[in-house]
Structures are given as structure tokens and as C-alpha cells.
């Protein structure tokens, strides 16, 4: 019996590619493909969904991880594969925490999506060891510490060191110290440049 698949992907090109992949393999059957993650739970409620290919950033700002959490709470038997192209570090941790079955990077992972889907359906949990390596200035995203990534994520909001420090429960001077460290690592001159580059590369997404 074929696995019923729901595709949640807001970008036309990858969605069409996923549809072609799913339709080309007799082990899978495409139930629907949608662009907004907030509607995914309604498809699950109606029954008949075995596997969801879920993007993280979907249409109208709806989060695939939020939707996955909701679905896993209500329907833990439904398998979910998070598919993304963004190297945002926190997504991997959150996906593991909420019980997502597999995690697949669209461009960086060598293993074909159909193989990942089949292995996930057989009960495996497939996660990459790390986020894809992305060059930022003179360094790469793996050179940043967890704390630096937390601060970098807040930096994109355009808030001051004091405001960021208050949100993260640290001193403004500590925020300043970490920002300075990141500027030295990347060789960038301003925090604006650093924040803009990190966000556009998908290293941090808020």
C-alpha cells in the first residue's frame, strides 16, 4: 500500500520537484501539496496522511516547525520530514525536540529525498550531523558559538545591546563583547553588515 504524502512548500519550483518525485515512485501517493503550513493540521484531521514533507518558512510567514509540533502532538503516528535550504542552527534542535522524524537540507544533502522518505517510513530518524557550511566574511557559520548565534539572531531585530541583553538574560556589555568577537571573526566592519549578511545567508532566522 502506497504512503500518502502531503507536501507543504511555498516555493513553486521545489514543490513541483517534490510532486514529480512523489508521483514518479509507486511507493508514494500524493494527497495534496499546499503552500501554507497552518493548513496542514486540517489535512491530517481528515485522515489519510502518512507522511508530510514540510518546509520551515512557508506562505504568509507560517512556520513549518510550529505546524509540525501541533501535528505531532495530535497525530504522533504521522511521519514528518522537515525540508529546508536554510542553515539556521536552532531549527535542527527544535525539530529533534518536537519529535520530527527526519530533517533534509534541500541543496546540501547528498541522499535523495525519496530514499529519506522511504527510510523515514521504515522507522528511521534521519538527521544531518550539522547544518550546511556557509561562508560568511572570513569565516563560516560553524565557527560561531551557540551564544554568538543567539545574539546574531537577535541582532537582526535592530534592537540595542541593552534590549538584546534583556531578552537573553545577559548584560549589554556581554552582548557587545560577542558582537565584537563576531565582527573580528568575519572581518566585517559594522553590526548592520553582519546582521544583514547572516540573515540573507539563512544562518540566523527569527
Amino acid at each position, binding site marked *: 500500500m502506497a504512503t500518502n504524502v502531503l507536501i507543504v512548500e*511555498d*516555493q*513553486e*519550483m*521545489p514543490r*513541483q*520537484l517534490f510532486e*514529480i518525485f512523489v508521483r514518479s515512485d509507486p511507493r508514494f501517493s500524493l*494527497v*495534496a*501539496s*499546499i*503552500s*501554507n503550513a*497552518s*493548513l496542514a493540521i*486540517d*489535512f491530517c484531521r*481528515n485522515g489519510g496522511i502518512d507522511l508530510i514533507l514540510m518546509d520551515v*518558512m512557508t*506562505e*504568509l*510567514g*507560517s512556520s513549518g516547525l510550529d505546524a509540525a509540533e501541533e501535528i505531532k502532538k495530535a497525530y504522533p503516528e504521522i511521519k514528518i520530514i522537515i525540508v529546508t*535550504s536554510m542553515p539556521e542552527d536552532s531549527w535542527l534542535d527544535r525539530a529533534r525536540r518536537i519529535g520530527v522524524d527526519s530533517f533534509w537540507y534541500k541543496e546540501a544533502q547528498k541522499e535523495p529525498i525519496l530514499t529519506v522518505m522511504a527510510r523515514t517510513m521504515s522507522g528511521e530518524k534521519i538527521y544531518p550531523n550539522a547544518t550546511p557550511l556557509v561562508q560568511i566574511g572570513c569565516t563560516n557559520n560553524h565557527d560561531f558559538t551557540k551564544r554568538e548565534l543567539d545574539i546574531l539572531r537577535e*541582532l*537582526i*531585530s*535592530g*534592537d*540595542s545591546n541593552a534590549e538584546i541583553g534583556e531578552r537573553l538574560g545577559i548584560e549589554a556589555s556581554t552582548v557587545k563583547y560577542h558582537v565584537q568577537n563576531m565582527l573580528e571573526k568575519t572581518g566585517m566592519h*559594522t*553590526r*548592520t553588515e553582519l*546582521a*544583514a549578511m547572516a*540573515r*540573507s545567508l*539563512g544562518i540566523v532566522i*527569527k
Partner: protein
Amino acid sequence: MNSLLSISVPIQNLLCFWAQLTCLGSIANEFLLWRQHRHRAFFLSSVCATLCFFIIHVCMEGTQLRVHGTTNGFAQKLLQWPFEVYVFCLLAVSTLCVISYRSVLLWGKTHVTSASIKESIDELPAGVCYYLEDNRCILSNHRMKNICLALLKEPLQNGAALYEASKSKPVFVLPDGTAVSFRHRMIPFDGVFLHELIADDVTLAYQKNEQLRVDNERARRLQEGIKAYGETIADTVREEEILQAKVNIHDGMNRMILATKKAMQESATDDERKGILQMWQGQALMLCKEADTQKSNHVVTDLNTLAQVIGIKLRWNSIPQTSDSAVLSLFLSATREAMINATKHAHATFLRIDVEESKNALRATFTNDGRKAVSPIQETGGLLNLRERLKKSGGHMQIQTEPEFKLMIQIPEGENHYGNECFNC
């Protein structure tokens, strides 16, 4: 013992000269002691000076007697006094004069005089002015006088006028480029209150403050830039990814053209030809669909897909045209709620959706063909959440059960809020 008349003339002249020097010293001491307000010492110096004057006078009488042979009886008696008495007196007076002068010097080193106060405040970098209740200025320094000239264009006479002028701004930049800040306080002094007005030189702090203000303004603009960037970056990244995907498709087409050319030249098998054909079909399908990227179309497509799965038909009399994500998100939630309630509670088979868009708001009405509600609609769960979300965005929701069930929503667009506007207006 020898009287004054019995000693030689040069010695008598020497004695007279000594008395004159001591007299001058005593007078100088008197002047200095008077300035130091030391009245006892002043009196003593006066006595010394008088005694010296007396000895000079006696010596001069002696000289007159020697030259002219005449003098008065009292002077003759004084001239009979022993010479040693005069020497002893002069010695004592001279010693006192030296001691007195030394005490004047020591007193000057250990006591502050009004002159030294004036001199010291003139050296201060800050402007200082003390004035009385009647506004009369009793003490000020050169700096404050210059500041007053710069601010009031008149000499410093009225302390209160300067104080009033100083209250208009926290910092004054003077023509020489220096910045001053005034502070004022009342000091009890000698039974009255004295006004103390000090103009601190805050040039360095002012310059740093100005630099900080410029830097803060720059930082604020940068922060606004980051915020704006954060708001648009998701769309920008998505567009970049779409462009990259298009590039990949075009690369794929190039590879397929090469593969097709090779297959045609080398007489490929039927399976190879079928494979190439399937690849062409897949690429062509993606190229055909890539044009449909409008957000509202995605919303309509998603809702139609969901309707199909849950078993209801959507009839769109019009579809939203806006590209505002917040508006479309609320519209999506409302349609989803209307759709689920129509199937779950009214067992409807179709849902009609009327969308009306003005410049500032989107209005949508949902009606279905299901059974009518027998009791008033209880807003719980989804409907309640929807109402709250709409209210938060400045919009509102209305439910009508007669003559047919209608769910009406209004969502403001952009920064407009039309929460008070009613549907029938």
C-alpha cells in the same frame, strides 16, 4: 655715662639715620598690618614709629644746638639723657620692627585674604559670581565677566539678570567655541542668603555629547535599516531562491538539449528516448507553473485543495487581490474556520465567498447552504480566536443567523484601523 651731646657728630648722625630706617620700617609694617586687620600689632608698630620719630627729633635738636647754639629747654633736658638709653631704645624698636615684619610675612602665608580670594577665583576655569538679595554682584571673576558680556552684551552688575538668562538653556556655546553650563545655589552667609552662580566649562563634555548624539542618530538610522531589512528579507531570500531554482532549470534544460542531441546522433534506444522525453515533460511542467507565484493565488489554491479534501465546494464570487501577508493570513484563517464549521456543524455542501476590497480594508462574507442554526451561535475555540485576532489587528467580525447564516469579517490593510466601521454603513 655719656649724654647725647657729648658724643661725636658722626655717631649722632648715624644714630639719627638708624632711627629713620627703623621709623620707615615701622610705618611699612603699620600699612601691612592694617591690611591684615591686626589691630594690636598695628598699634605696637605705631608706638615704635612714634618712638623712632621722637629719637630723630632729639637728634635733630642736638644738631641745631651744635650749629646754632640754641634750643628749647625740654630738648636740652632730653639731650642730657645718656646716649646708651637711645641706643637701647632704637635696638629694641628695630628688633620689634624685624619681628613684626617677619610675622607679617608668616601671617600672609598662613591666612587667606580677600585679595588672595579674588586672585584665586580669577584663575579658575569656571565663571564665578556671588550676588546679594538686591541682585548686587559682590564677587565675580574675569571668566564670569566675559561670559556675561557674551550672553547679555553688558558688563556684569546684576547677578539675577545673568541667572535668569542662564535658565533658558542647559548649555551655552560662547563665541570663542567654549561651552558653559550654569548652576545656582543659595548660601547662608553672615545672617543673609548669598546667591552663588557658577558657569562650569563643559566644552569637552559638550563636544562628546554632540558626537554621541550624532553617533546615536546614526545608530538609530542603522537600526531602522536593520528592522526594515528584517521585514523584507524573507521575501528577498525567497525571490533569490526562486531565481536560483530557475537557473537550475535552465541548466537542466541545457543538459537535456545536449543529451537529446547526443541521443539523436548516436541512435539511442527506446528506453533512453522515453527517459529523455519524461525529463522534457517534467521541465516543461515546471516552466508552465512557475508564472503562478502571486500570494493570493496560493491562498485560494490552498483553500480549494483543503475544501476538496474535507468535502465541501468553494464558490468564489471574487478573490482577494491584496499582497499584504497579514491581511491574507487573517483571511485564510477566517475562510478555513468558515469552511470547517460549515461541514462540521451545518453539513453544508458549498461555501460562497464574497470578497470586497477598498483602499483601506478587505471585507469578506461567507455563506453556506447547510442547515440553519436552531440556537444562537456559541463562539468558542476557532471562532473566538478569530474574533480576537481580528480585533487585535483593528478589524472585526460579525455573525448573522437570519435569514441565512453569514460570517462577515473586515480586515484593515496597512496601518489603517476601521474597527468602528459597521458592515451596513
